[in-house]
C-alpha cells in the first residue's frame, strides 16, 4: 500500500485523480492533497510517510517546476510524476531535469495512470 500526495490547484482534478487511482486498481492507502507547491512542501515537512507525489505544473504561488526543485533541494528522493495540461517537450524535459520521474498529460484515463504509475507503487 502506498501513501500518495496530490498537488494541484484544482480541487476537481484532485478528486478525479484520487478516483482514477483506485479505478486503475493501484494499491493506495492514504491520499494527501495540496493546492499548490507551497502547501505540498508543507505536507512533506509535516513528516507524513509518502511513497509517490503527483504534481500539476501550472499552479499559483509555487508552480510544479519550482515545487520539484524544492523537494529535491531538501534531499527528498520520493518519485514525483507530473500530471499536467502542459505537454510541450521542453517543459517536460525541464521537469525531468529538475528531478521529476515521469509525466502524464491531462486529460488522462485510469489505464494511462496504471501504465505510468504501476511500477512506482
Amino acid at each position, binding site marked *: 500500500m502506498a501513501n500518495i500526495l496530490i498537488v494541484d*490547484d*484544482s*480541487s*476537481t*482534478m484532485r*478528486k*478525479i485523480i484520487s*478516483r482514477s487511482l483506485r479505478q486503475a486498481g493501484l494499491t493506495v492507502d492514504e491520499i494527501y492533497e495540496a493546492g499548490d507547491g507551497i502547501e505540498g512542501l508543507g505536507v512533506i515537512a509535516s513528516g507524513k510517510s509518502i511513497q509517490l507525489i503527483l504534481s500539476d505544473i*501550472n*499552479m*499559483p504561488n509555487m508552480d510544479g517546476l519550482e515545487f520539484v526543485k524544492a523537494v529535491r533541494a531538501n534531499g527528498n528522493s520520493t518519485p514525483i510524476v507530473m500530471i*499536467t*495540461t*502542459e*505537454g*510541450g*517537450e*521542453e*517543459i*517536460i524535459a*525541464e521537469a525531468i531535469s529538475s528531478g521529476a520521474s515521469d509525466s502524464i*498529460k*491531462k*486529460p*488522462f*484515463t485510469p489505464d494511462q495512470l496504471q501504465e505510468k504509475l504501476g511500477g512506482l507503487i
Partner: protein
Amino acid sequence: MSLNSDIARTTSLTEEQVAGYVIDATKEVFSTMVMMDVVGDFPLTEPVSRFKCCITGMVGFAGTYSGVISIHCPIALALKVTSNMLGVDCDEVNDDLNDAIGEIANMLGGSVKQVLSKGGLDVKLSIPTVISGEDYTVNSLSDNDCVVVPFTVEGHTLLVGLTLTKED
C-alpha cells in the same frame, strides 16, 4: 469572424484545421474527464458576447501567441458536468462548479497550446478565470479574430471559443 491571418500564416493552419483541433480537444476532455459525449458543429459565423444563465471558463495564452480559450456553458449543463467530474451531485453554483469549469478550460488551453508550441516554453498559460450569472457579456478587443465552435451535449449547447493573435 475568422482566424487571425497572422496565426494562419505562422502556424500553417487553416481555420478549419484550428476548429478541428478545438473539436478534438473538447471531445477528448469530455469523454475522458466528464464521461459525456459531445457533438461538434461548424464554427459560428458571428461572435457571441451575451450569455444568460451561463458559466464561462477562460484561460489566457501569453508569449509568442497571445489570446484566450473559453468555454461557455448553460448552468443546467454545468451542474451535470460538475456532478460527473466529482462523482457526487452538484445542484447549485458554488466553488465546485467554478473549479470544474475552470479545469475544463485549463485542459482545453493545454491542448491548443501544444498545437501552437511544440516545446511549450514560448507560450505560457494563465490560471483559469471563471464568471457566471443570469445575464452577462464577455467582450474581447479582437472578437473578429476568433473561432467559436458550438457543441451539443445532452440536449444543451455549449460554446468553445479561441481568440489568438501573433506577437511581434
